[in-house]
C-alpha cells in the first residue's frame, strides 16, 4: 500500500497512484496538479512515464530517508526560489517580525501538543527524551536563565511595541488556523513517527547548514545578529533558533531513520512529510500576511 502525498488517500501501489493523479488532473484539482508540477514534471506524462517518475521520486534507497527529506525541503523553501517569508527575514522589517510573533505563538502552542502526542504514543526511550528536551527548549524553558523560544518570541513582540496581552489575544489567521488543525489531526490519528517527521522536518527552515544541501541563502542573514537593524530581543529570539534547530532537525531525522524500517511505513512518512510542508508553506505566508496588517 502507498499513500498519496497530497490527500493521503490509501492506494494499492504506485500504478494506482498514477490513476489517482491522472483522475485529479482531469478534474483540474489544484493541489494534485501542484504536486505534479512541483515534484514530477510540468509536462504531461503518459501512464508508464508517470509510474516510473513516481517510483523514482519516492525512492529513498540511494539517499536514505534523512537526505530525501532534506533535499525536498530545500527544493521547496530555498533553492532558486526561496519562500517569500525567508526572503523577508534576511533583513527583516519590524512588521515582518511582528507578523512572525503573532502567528508563531499559535504554531508553538500546537508544537507542544504534537510533541506530547509523540511521547504518548511511542515506546522508544530516546524518542521520548528527545521530545522532552524539544518541548522544554521551545515552550517550557529551563528556569529564568534559559527562557524558552516561546518566551523569547513574546519578548521580541514586546520590543516591537505589541504588549504581551495583545499578542495573546489575537486569533490566528485562517491559514495558520487550518495548518494547526492539520498538524493536530496528524498528532491524534497517525503513527508517532509520522507526527515526528511532520513536525521536526519543519525545523530545517532554520537549519544552519542548509546551504550544504543546495540552499542559496539561510533563514536569515547572520550578520543581522551583529548589527543594530533589529532589537536585542529579536536578535535573541533568532539566535536561539539558529543555535538549537541544527541539532533538533538532525537528531529527529536520525531517530526517524532509525525507527522507520518498514517500507510501507516509510512511504507513509514521506506522504505525511509532503503534506506537512505544504501546510508549512501556507503558514509562513500567513506570517507575512499578518505583518502586512501593521504596515
Amino acid at each position, binding site marked *: 500500500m502507498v499513500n498519496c502525498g497530497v490527500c493521503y488517500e490509501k492506494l494499492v501501489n504506485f500504478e494506482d497512484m498514477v490513476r489517482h493523479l491522472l483522475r485529479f*488532473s*482531469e478534474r*483540474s484539482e*489544484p493541489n494534485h*496538479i*501542484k504536486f*505534479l508540477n512541483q515534484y514530477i514534471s510540468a*509536462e504531461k506524462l503518459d501512464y508508464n512515464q508517470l509510474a516510473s517518475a513516481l517510483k523514482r521520486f519516492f525512492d529513498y534507497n540511494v539517499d536514505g530517508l534523512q537526505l530525501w527529506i532534506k533535499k525536498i525541503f530545500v527544493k521547496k523553501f530555498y533553492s532558486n526560489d526561496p519562500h*517569500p517569508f525567508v526572503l523577508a527575514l534576511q533583513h527583516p522589517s519590524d512588521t515582518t517580525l511582528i507578523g512572525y510573533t503573532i502567528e508563531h505563538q499559535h504554531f508553538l502552542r500546537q508544537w507542544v501538543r504534537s510533541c506530547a502526542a509523540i511521547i504518548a504514543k511511542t515506546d522508544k526511550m530516546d524518542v521520548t527524551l528527545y521530545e522532552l528536551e524539544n518541548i522544554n527548549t521551545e515552550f517550557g524553558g529551563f528556569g529564568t536563565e534559559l527562557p524558552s523560544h516561546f518566551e523569547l518570541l513574546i519578548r521580541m513582540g514586546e520590543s516591537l511595541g505589541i504588549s504581551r496581552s495583545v499578542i495573546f489575544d489575537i486569533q490566528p489567521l485562517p491559514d495558520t488556523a487550518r495548518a494547526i488543525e492539520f498538524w493536530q489531526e496528524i498528532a491524534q490519528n497517525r503513527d508517532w513517527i509520522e507526527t515526528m517527521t511532520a513536525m521536526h522536518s519543519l525545523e530545517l527552515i532554520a537549519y544552519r547548514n542548509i546551504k550544504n544541501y543546495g540552499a542559496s541563502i539561510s533563514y536569515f542573514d547572520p550578520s543581522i545578529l551583529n548589527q543594530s537593524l533589529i532589537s536585542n530581543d529579536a536578535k535573541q529570539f533568532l539566535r536561539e533558533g539558529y543555535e538549537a534547530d541544527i541539532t533538533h532537525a538532525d537528531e529527529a531525522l536520525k531517530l526517524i531513520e532509525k525507527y522507520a524500517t518498514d517500507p510501507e511505513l516509510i512511504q507513509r512518512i514521506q506522504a505525511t512529510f509532503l503534506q506537512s510542508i505544504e501546510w508549512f508553506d501556507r503558514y509562513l505566508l500567513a506570517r507575512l500576511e499578518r505583518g502586512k496588517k501593521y504596515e
Partner: protein
Amino acid sequence: MNKCELCKSQWGNFWKRIEDQHLFFCCQLCAVQYENLINAIQIQFGNREISMTEIQGTSRLRICKVVKNDKEYRFSVSYSTDGQIFRFKEL
C-alpha cells in the same frame, strides 16, 4: 498539448474566458492568479498598448515583463494562497 497560460504546466483541464480570450489553465488557482495579474497590470500601466512578454516564477512569486510604448517594465507579483495579489512591486 495545451499549456497553462500562467505556469505552462500541461496538466489539468481548466478553461476560462479572460478579456475575450478562451484560455487554458492547469487549475482554477492559476486562472484566478492570471486574471488578478491582468487586472493589476491594467491598473498599474493602463489599458492601452500593453503586451505581456514574459511570466516566470512560481505560484508564490511571479516575475513578469510587459511592454508599453516600446518600453519594458519588470515587476514581481506575490500571491496569497487563494490567488489574490499580496504584493505588486515594480523591479
